[in-house]
């Protein structure tokens, strides 16, 4: 989850194109990294409740680094309305070693 043993969120290299997923209150939001500038990361909304897909927004780098990385193929398939063969394609990948 990008959270160290001391509980502090660590920074991860967030390169362009990386897809991040945030699970909150039983729902999830998916974002694609557009650019990382210091403490702020600009992302494109792939899917999030109430937000238009394709719109961009800024997140803190700490919040972005603490998200899960998502399976890009699955996200694209969902975006195009294709039902994936497996729902286990989105996986929790520790972003920090």
């Amino acid at each position, binding site marked *: *989850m990008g*959270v160290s043993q*001391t*509980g*502090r*969120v660590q920074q991860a290299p967030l390169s362009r194109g990386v897809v991040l997923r*945030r699970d*909150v*209150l039983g*729902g999830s*939001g998916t*974002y694609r990294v557009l650019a990382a500038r210091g*403490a*702020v990361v600009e992302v494109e909304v792939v899917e*999030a*409740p*109430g*937000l238009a897909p394709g*719109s961009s*927004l*800024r*997140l*803190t780098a*700490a*919040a*972005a680094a*603490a*998200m899960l990385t998502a399976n890009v193929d699955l996200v694209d398939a969902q975006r195009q309305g294709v039902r994936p063969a497996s729902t286990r394609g989105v996986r929790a990948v520790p972003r920090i070693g």
Partner: protein
Amino acid sequence: MSLEPTLARRAAAAAEATGEKGCGVWSARRAHAVEHVGPPYHPSGASQPAQARTAADQFFAAAPGTRVSVVLPALNEAANLPHVLTRLPGFVHEVVLVDRGSIDDTVTVARALRPDIRVLLQDGRGKGNALSCGFAVATGDIIVRLDADGSHDPAEIPRFVEALLAGHDFAKGSRFAPGGRSADITAVRWLGNRTLSSLVNLLFGTEYSDLRYGYSAFWRRCLPHLSARGAAFEVETLINVRVARAGLQVVEIASIEHRRLSGKSDLRVVRDGLRVLGAIVIERLRRAGTEPASSRLHENPGDQQGRR
């Protein structure tokens, strides 16, 4: 609030009609009885089962003039707000977001999701200041205080409101009441909370099961007793203690705390725990009826100067 007795009677009648029970009910001064609430409330929306309509639903259908405000202190919550704001019950008439100096698109996202949202910039420091700013400008008869980080589920709001409509002054969430739980607490934090809760119960004659949980709702007339403007980490404790000292009728609502992204180290927890302990001792030593200068609500809060 001459309206309130009528509201309470209607809510009680509605609750009786639906066979619902109260939950963890007691006066903050002296315990009466502890009952437990029924199954969790399902949020309004497409996924809501037909049988999930509650006394609050029935009440608001009958008395649409009752206004409920939600106050959300927020610091860099752009990724969480879509999940929080879209789960607010339909009867919420006003949302006040108190921005604590976010560097991300918290405010932009909030406005995109809810164009009628009121956005304030807190005019001081600390969570207590942010809450005081939000409480002071909220216009609802009932004010709900909710965290914007996704740890508090807005779908639980109707249960808090129901408790107020049933006649209580202050409804506080509890992760440790039957039916409540936390996905975001460590053993050290649990032990600290337990110890501090016991201390407050001993010193102030309360029966709090969870001192350090912020999810709560109250009638607007309770505001003078809830201020903790200068407080930071100890804000929840101070509010709960001051509510008890004021002799308000308190009810605990079983609540589920969801996991948040950022955590605190146990070292920080110990330091903050000591700060809370200090606040409890000072509050105990303070003479009844005196109000610390740092806790007064602003007459003209950040709504004007800080409003974005």
